[in-house]
């Protein structure tokens, strides 16, 4: 505390003396209470910014918790039992089956991709076939339309089996209820449409609609052949009191080589839960961004409030209040208002899940568990409080430090303010705490750290851009017309909000621009570049003895060609002998360990990949098992040349040495595998062939696929164009979701702009009145204000478009390794949006100013 303020502490005001902090704090509270009696008119934007940010974080967090709780609550339904054991390629053997059946009530489900065909073969659809037994489902029920029991819908009579299918099958095959179709060699009757299936898998990119048939129907289809990609799921309802984890341990101990993947209700839908948490996390970051942008509005409001109290503060100082007491009194007011805003945000955010629940019903496989989730509310409250501290302390302290005389003269040329080290340190600590909160509560800390770095960089960039705009406006030659001069001068006058508006509005706009550009680039990539080089179809499950016939069909079609490789599926179980569960794996490589991967063997390096380390084996290699591995995955798993990789293939573990690493160009959409074995190891294992066919779209493709699937009913054709279209749709959906998120940030930016316009109202009215006195018409004055706002919007948009483009470019080139296409349309939209928003808000403010009666402002005080 400075000597003068200690002196005045002994003044008449408080009866408070230096060294008696308790009485000072009591007085600060009393002062704060008196000040707050005057109302919170100046704090509407403060509260709006805070409520928006806290609502977003609390709402998104509560919604994520409600969905995750729903998934956990419905775990048995989603899993189909208390525990599930999954085998790939093979059904459980006699001993395994006996063990399973003895453990509780058993239900078997076989899942595979297949082709459904109309009876005349004219229409086909790739489907996900599920063959169930009579015990299915162990939990919940399948709802059909018409409302038949599942057993009735699937029963077989005289060689024809019943089937229940998703509506998509009926439309693709042109079927009505009661009509027949084929899967493999079996003829089926469509008896019912699936309306709800408790264990329906959730996935953004399903290959085709689901069809449920009986196990007898699957057997009749002839699809179960050696090497056919079939997942066998054994679900168990355990006796009451049995522990799923103990059962899993017992099962693993009893059959250590089974290679089955055992899951309990606790990890019923790990991918779904991961997906929800990840989406929640990204939305949460958007909420934090909105809060940060709102923070600028909060800071502006505090600065404006303190400025409006200049006389009161100076008077208090003159009467003997110390800077510390005044600072404390104003901080108490800000914190009291912050508590109001945070409480409002928590209330709105807490009820938000209930409001959006109807919109989400049907989109998620589990019902939302609505309730009060304290953790997201606590995170939202703490984020709000820290944001208020980060953005309020600076303006609060700066004014508090000025001597009374300077305060009286501050309206035109603010004195250079010194921020006390304690306040600067507290602000920085609050900012660090906010960053830490974001990182510690994130499911992916690496992304959270990137976010924090990105946010700091974005704030710095926009602040710099704002400062440059102000500096340029100041140095521009003064326009001859007073209207233009006034507009330009308002951009760079000492307390102009230009830089803050560029920052707050620009952030939202740049996110919007980046989302639009990345989405546009992805669309170009998927719809043009990928489609150009992609095969027409992938044909899967070709049996080795069908290969010659398949090649014959393709060669008979003019212009058609194909590439094929043998394909097996296996799961990576050990890295250098260490079980993968115990190994440290980078997040970007974890996907390769989550389930079975396709693998192949080859004498020559596959097209579309380049050996970047080690050397390819000789064409006639015969020796110990060797593999060539994807270089990026190897990096993520910490593997190098000479290390070993163990793969479980049909219950047998094969350990191979890494002989080479390859850089794989996945974007070619040709056939490629992360794991390629050297010849001599896998030839004898049951396998199928995967073929990519290249043929012109239209009749030739139609004829080729039709002939192949007619002659080999067990094979499935995956149309790549349809897949790409599905990917494009998913990209569009994600783009729309991200755009919505960007709009929250933009809303915060608009609030800040609105606050700045409101704060500048007095000045605008004053300018307007003086100009009227000097003979300016309303049109002239309106033009000046609109030019000012138009220029501000335009410059903000240009900066936002530039930074958004840079961010999008970095993502497309750096993170997605794709080619960059400049797309002017989204940027033009951003420009238009910014100018319209600023003009509208500016016009609203100007309209009021133009209507002000001059006389009231011109009378002598």
């Amino acid at each position, binding site marked *: 505390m400075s000597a003068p303020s200690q002196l005045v502490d002994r003044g008449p005001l408080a009866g408070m003396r230096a060294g008696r902090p308790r009485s000072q704090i009591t007085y600060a509270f009393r002062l704060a209470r008196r000040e707050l009696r005057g109302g919170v008119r100046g704090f509407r934007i403060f509260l709006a910014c805070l409520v928006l940010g806290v609502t977003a974080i609390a709402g998104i967090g509560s919604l994520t918790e409600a969905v995750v709780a729903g998934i956990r609550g419905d775990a048995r339904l989603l899993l189909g039992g208390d525990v599930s054991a999954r085998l790939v390629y093979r059904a459980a053997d006699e001993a395994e089956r006996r063990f399973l059946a003895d453990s509780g009530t058993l239900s078997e489900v076989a899942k595979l991709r297949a082709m459904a065909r109309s009876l005349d073969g004219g229409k086909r659809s790739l489907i996900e076939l599920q063959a169930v037994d009579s015990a299915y489902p162990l939990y919940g029920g399948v709802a059909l339309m018409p409302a038949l029991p599942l057993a009735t819908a699937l029963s077989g009579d005289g060689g024809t089996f019943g089937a229940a299918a998703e509506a998509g099958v009926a439309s693709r095959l042109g079927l009505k209820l009661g009509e027949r179709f084929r899967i493999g060699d079996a003829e089926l009757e469509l008896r019912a449409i699936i309306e709800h299936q408790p264990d329906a898998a959730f996935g953004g990119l399903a290959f085709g609609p689901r069809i449920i048939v009986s196990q007898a129907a699957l057997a009749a289809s002839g699809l179960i052949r050696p090497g056919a990609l079939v997942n066998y799921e054994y679900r168990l309802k355990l006796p009451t009191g049995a522990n799923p984890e103990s059962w899993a341990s017992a099962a693993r101990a009893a059959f250590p080589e089974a290679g089955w993947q055992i899951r309990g209700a606790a990890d019923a839908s790990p991918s779904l839960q991961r997906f929800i948490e990840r989406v929640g996390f990204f939305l949460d970051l958007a909420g934090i961004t909105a809060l940060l942008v709102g923070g600028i509005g909060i800071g502006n409001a505090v600065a404006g409030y303190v400025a409006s109290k200049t006389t009161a503060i100076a008077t208090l100082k003159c009467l003997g209040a110390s800077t510390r007491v005044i600072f404390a009194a104003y901080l108490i007011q800000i914190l009291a208002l912050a508590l109001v805003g945070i409480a409002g945000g928590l209330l709105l955010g807490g009820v938000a899940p209930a409001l959006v629940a109807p919109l989400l019903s049907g989109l998620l496989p589990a019902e939302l568990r609505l309730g009060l989730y304290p953790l997201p509310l606590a995170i939202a409250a703490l984020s709000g409080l820290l944001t208020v501290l980060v953005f309020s302390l600076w303006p609060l302290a700066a004014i508090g430090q000025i001597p009374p005389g300077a305060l009286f003269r501050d309206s035109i*040329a603010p004195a250079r303010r010194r921020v006390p080290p304690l306040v600067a340190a507290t602000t920085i600590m609050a900012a660090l705490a906010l960053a830490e909160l974001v990182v510690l509560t994130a499911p992916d800390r690496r992304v959270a750290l990137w976010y924090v770095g990105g946010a700091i960089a974005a704030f710095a960039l926009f602040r710099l851009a704002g400062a440059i705009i102000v500096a340029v406006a100041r140095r521009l030659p003064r326009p001859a017309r*007073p209207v233009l001069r006034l507009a330009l001068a308002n951009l760079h006058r000492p307390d102009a909000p230009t830089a803050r508006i560029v920052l707050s509005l620009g952030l939202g706009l740049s996110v919007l621009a980046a989302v639009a550009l990345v989405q546009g680039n992805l669309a170009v990539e998927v719809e043009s570049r990928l489609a150009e080089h992609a095969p027409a179809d992938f044909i899967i499950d070709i049996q080795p003895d069908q290969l010659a016939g398949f090649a014959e069909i393709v060669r008979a079609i003019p212009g058609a060609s194909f590439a094929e490789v043998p394909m097996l599926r296996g799961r990576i179980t050990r890295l250098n002998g260490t079980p993968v569960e115990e190994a440290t794996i980078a997040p970007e490589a974890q996907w390769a360990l989550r389930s079975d991967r396709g693998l192949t063997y080859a004498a020559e390096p596959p097209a579309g990949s380049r050996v970047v380390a080690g050397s390819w084996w000789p064409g006639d290699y015969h020796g110990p098992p060797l593999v060539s591995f994807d270089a990026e995955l190897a990096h993520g798993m910490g593997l190098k040349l000479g290390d070993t990789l163990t793969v479980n293939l049909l219950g047998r573990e094969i350990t191979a040495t890494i002989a080479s690493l390859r850089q794989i160009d996945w974007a070619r959409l040709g056939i490629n595998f992360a794991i390629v074995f050297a010849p001599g190891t896998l030839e004898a294992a049951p396998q199928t062939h995967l073929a990519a066919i290249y043929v012109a779209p239209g009749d030739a493709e139609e004829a080729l696929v039709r002939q192949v699937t007619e002659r080999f009913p067990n094979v499935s054709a995956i149309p790549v164009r349809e897949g790409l279209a599905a990917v494009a749709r998913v990209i569009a959906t994600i783009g729309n979701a991200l755009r919505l998120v960007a709009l929250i940030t933009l809303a915060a930016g608009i609030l800040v702009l609105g606050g700045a316009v409101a704060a500048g109202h007095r000045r605008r009215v004053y300018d307007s009145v003086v100009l009227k006195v000097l*003979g300016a018409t309303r049109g002239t004055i309106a033009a000046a204000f609109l030019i000012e706002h138009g220029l501000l919007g335009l410059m903000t948009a240009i900066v936002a478009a530039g930074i958004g483009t840079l961010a999008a470019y970095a993502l497309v080139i750096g993170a997605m390794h794709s080619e960059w296409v400049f797309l002017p349309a989204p940027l033009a939209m951003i420009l238009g949006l910014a100018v319209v928003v600023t003009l509208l808000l500016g016009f609203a403010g100007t309209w009021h100013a133009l209507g002000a009666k001059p006389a009231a402002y011109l009378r002598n005080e």
Partner: protein
Amino acid sequence: MTSPPATAGPLVALDDVRLTLASAAGPVDILRGISLTIMAGETVALLGPSGSGKSSLLMVLAGLERPSAGGVRLAGHDLAALDEDGLARLRRHHVGIVFQSFHLIPTMNALENVAIPLELAGDRGALATAGAALERVGLGHRLTHYPGQLSGGEQQRVAIARAFAAGPQLLLADEPTGNLDGETGRAVMDRLFAEHARLGTALLLITHDAELAARCEREIVLADGRIVEERQAAPRRRAL
């Protein structure tokens, strides 16, 4: 639209002007039937206690406040017939105003502040004219200074230069020295009367200062919204 001023008759004519403003306590009669004429080139001092209606009368005269009843003619124009923009144009061409609180635009420097009315009137040589006006008020060395960088007396001299820049027929001044110390106030008034003498501008001056009022040809005393006294100054006093 404003047309060229009519030269015959008084420059300003107020006929039974009344102004009633609404307030929380009910309507308040500010002006209660003011009739007044000011001839071209005449200097008139308006005196009276606080709240007597002096500033309101000035606002009505400048077209900044519309009277509740009565007629106002300025330079041959009936103010009641003009809309807000028409009144602005009338001020642009015929009226200059000097306020006690200066009312300069803080984001414009002295030269630009003075140039505004000229530029609004479409004067291509506005800046040169404004520069000359500032020279005349002794601020030729302060052209690029902003209001915040000028003293009160300097700001008022800028305001005077601005008010006279377009060569108005009527200059209204509302206690122009009220915010200045005695010495500075006298210098400012000397400047104001010098400009009046140079341009032949009629002057209506609100003041509490009897000495200052005595420099005018006529003194009008207002009380409670009415003219209670009107006196012509002695020729020798006018010469001061």
